[in-house]
């Protein structure tokens, strides 16, 4: 095998192998970027659903429960219990409910437990408090 690789005969096969490996790495990176974007989209969705629920019902706990439920649906096991924060903010003449979702995203976690590096993803949704909907 080594003899074939060392000779000129094997050069094209070596080049093909290198090209294939490069393609696999490229594809893996594409998949990872796609996963990162979908995670970002999902946490925005979780924040919106939680904020909307709290706004409609006038209950922060209902909003948090909804956000947790959507998080379990879309990103099971990825959103920590302290990753969802829902609170009321009052300014001069208006009150809002704010839902914040934070996820610690680990790169290549599907290939290696714990992943390689990572970053914190954050999403926020602001809705009027329930009485502003009337």
């Amino acid at each position: 095998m080594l003899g074939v690789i060392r000779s000129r005969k094997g050069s094209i096969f070596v080049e093909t192998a290198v090209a294939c490996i490069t393609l696999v790495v490229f594809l893996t990176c594409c998949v990872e970027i796609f996963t990162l974007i979908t995670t970002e989209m999902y946490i925005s969705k979780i924040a919106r659903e939680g904020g909307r629920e709290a706004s409609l019902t006038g209950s922060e706990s209902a909003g948090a429960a909804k956000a947790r439920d959507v998080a379990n649906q879309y990103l099971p096991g990825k959103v920590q219990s302290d990753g969802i924060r829902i609170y009321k903010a009052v300014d001069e003449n208006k009150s809002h409910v704010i839902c914040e979702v934070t996820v610690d995203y680990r790169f290549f976690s599907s290939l290696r437990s714990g992943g390689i590096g990572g970053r914190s993803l954050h999403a926020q949704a602001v809705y009027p408090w329930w009485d502003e909907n009337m």
Partner: protein
Amino acid sequence: MRSVLKTQKGQVMVEFAIAMIIFMLFVFALFAFGMWGAASFFTQEIAHEVARKYAVTDSVTQAESAGKGLMGRMAYVFIKPETIQIEVRKEGTSAVSEIKAKPRIDKYFVFHMPYITKTSEATLEHYIREGSKDQYVGRY
């Protein structure tokens, strides 16, 4: 042609041809895998949406209609619409959806792509809300 193949130039050409075949097989496999991945993603999205719709409306018809509606958003490029099977049911306090679909590219040479099956679960809306379902203020 024979004389060309017998020379060193010809040897390189033959090797290149074989390598190209291997390389193209590899590229097509990547393409088929990508298409299958996209089909899988869209099937999961449909499952999520069907479960959510059923959790909110408590209507199987509306949930199925939402699932079929999602097919119109690019999903039909990757999934064969006629093969999609939507099943939604209540399990305790949850709405559970199960979607089966066949990817658009269902055969790669001798390899048959498997049916894609995805499930999703959402808590029924009135179990999240405080009070009864009658207090629901959103639109069905």
